């Protein structure tokens, strides 16, 4: 790969008081690539991604987008760079309905400049239908929706606006089997369209099915970045739990 990576994170740090949540992490992401970010609970995966999505400021280190230094001070900046995020917490306004959440911050408007709720509802129906054909009560406040339906709203919000860089923080945690499969298909389709994706997941099957490379984090540090073809599930588990590859490791694909 000779072209500049879509995203390059260099030596980034984040501290919360005494907790060094992300320690000197560097990772890049190319167009049409899915990079898995793995690690135990509290390893620092979400914090790392939050710095890319503008949700948290980095303490030091830099982020490059398409080879150029990017200033990402808030979520609006990130969106301007084409970075979309499915947050682990979903980040939905519970009192609003699904279309309002889908378009929050980027509402469709009539030529008078007022909210075009009908167009937003029509678009929302299309997006949500693609993810879950049974999702029809989209005009309820999302607080009255099931966990899976809420997750569909959060996913729809990230994919609707033609992202170039997609961050998926445990996107299928609340989904049933068929919806999970749908999201896997969607991920593959987006990758084929040339979108770069960071995927945080605890599901080894998904990781090996979808990712091109994996990065494993432990206690805030990156303990290894590997093409998926060179590691086995046991190798990855060893990285997550022990922070190192098994003794006498050789690449699975022969290097």
């Amino acid at each position, binding site marked *: 790969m000779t072209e500049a990576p879509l995203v390059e994170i260099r030596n980034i740090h984040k501290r919360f008081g005494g907790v060094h949540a992300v320690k000197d992490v560097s990772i890049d992401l190319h167009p049409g690539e899915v990079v898995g970010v793995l690690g135990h609970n509290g390893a620092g995966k979400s914090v790392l991604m939050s710095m890319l*999505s503008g*949700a948290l400021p980095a303490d030091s280190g830099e982020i490059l987008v398409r080879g150029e230094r990017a200033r990402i001070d*808030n*979520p*609006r900046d990130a*969106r301007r760079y084409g970075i979309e*995020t499915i*947050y682990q*917490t*979903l*980040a*939905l*306004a*519970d*009192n*609003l309905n699904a279309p*309002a959440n889908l378009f*929050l*911050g*980027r*509402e469709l*408007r009539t030529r008078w*400049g*007022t*909210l075009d*709720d*009908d*167009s937003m*509802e*029509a678009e929302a129906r299309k997006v949500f239908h693609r993810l879950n054909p049974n999702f029809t009560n989209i005009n309820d406040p999302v607080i009255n929706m099931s966990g899976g339906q809420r997750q569909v709203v959060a996913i729809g919000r990230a994919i609707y606006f033609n992202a170039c860089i997609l961050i998926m923080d445990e996107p299928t945690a609340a989904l049933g089997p068929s919806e999970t499969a749908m999201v896997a298909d969607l991920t593959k389709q987006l990758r084929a369209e040339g979108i770069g994706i960071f995927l945080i997941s605890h599901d080894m099957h998904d990781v090996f099915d979808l990712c091109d490379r994996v990065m494993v984090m432990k206690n805030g540090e990156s303990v290894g970045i590997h093409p998926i073809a060179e590691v086995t599930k046991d190798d990855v588990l060893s990285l997550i739990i022990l922070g190192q590859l098994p003794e006498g490791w050789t690449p699975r694909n022969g290097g």
Partner: protein
Amino acid sequence: MTEPSGGAPPKIQRDWAALLRVAEIDTRMLAMVVVLVVVWLGLNLLTDGIFMTARNLYNLAVQSSVVGIMATGMVLVIVARHIDLSVGSVMGFTGMVIAWLQVDVFTLGAAWNWPTTILLGLALGAAIGAFQGYWVAYRAIPAFVVTLGGLLMFRGGAFLVTDGRTVAPMDPTYQLLGGGINGSIGATWSWVFGLAAIALVAFMAWRNRSSRLRHGFPTKPVWVELLLFAVWAVLIVGFVLVMNAYTKPRSDIPRGIPVPVLILIAVVVGMSLISRITRFGRYVFAMGGNPRAAELSGIDVKKTTLLIFVIMGILCGIAAVITTARLNAGANSMGMLAELSVIAAAVIGGTSLAGGVGSIAGAILGAVIMQSLENGMVLMGVSSAMRQVIIGLVLIIAVWFDSMYKKNRR
């Protein structure tokens, strides 16, 4: 589809529920209207029919307008998880400044005098709102603290404007804004206004429906649309009839709709539009529902917060205009304790103190219910101390009722 296993509810009840669902009527709002009707009938009985005379309803409408105007702003403030304790003081201070400018500073009787003082008053309200909003939004001081400070500062300011002296009289044209003897628009214009309002209701319903049809969404049955329209038309015609039934002293010239009520209606329409069809309004509700989510969605939460307080300040300025016009003076006690009635009106009207929920129409109903109780008790000769006790209890019961309602709906 989901019949409860314990047998279907009685048919009547089911039909009602179905009707409300098709008509998309908010049951909470309906409950409030029922409460209002019950209160009115009760007070009418207790006052031997004085309560529901045209004269009293006219006065009630005028009395409700000041609190109602400020309550529409308080809805936005509370929905966004803030509070504004300073509205009474801000109203008193801007009112004093308006009166002082009009009477002591500017040329008395000049045609430009009163319009200029109104503009300056509204600008002052906006500036005060911006000041308080700045501390809340950009310096992260809780609104409770900032506006508690404002409550003291601007009450003191109201005194300082003239060292406690009451300023009077106001410009005769300006007084019309207060709804005094000549402060209403007469029978003909009231009918024009009423018919225009009915036409507007019909137009909005038609536009809404045609837009939904164009997108292929389900619509309400035509008969429901017609029924809703009929209800609105009857209410509007009834309102105009009542306002026209109250005549000027020693004559049978109908007064018509009082100017402060027209101002209230304009504010309500404007604020409803702001809260429902603008991005700003959507963001206010999003911030109330989940402030962090609003921020992550790219909403400029700080700017939105500042703007909420600016709007609240302007509304205090409008309320100050009506109050000084009605008093025909500026007195530094104006708006004393008004913050409590304003917050109570919003809360009785279904605005949740937890944020994220509230409606402008509800706040107006809340203001009218409170003002009806106040007005009715005055007619019955209840002492002011006793009135306070009762209004306080009503507030607690209203919030209790609201929380029960929410629990049962789940």
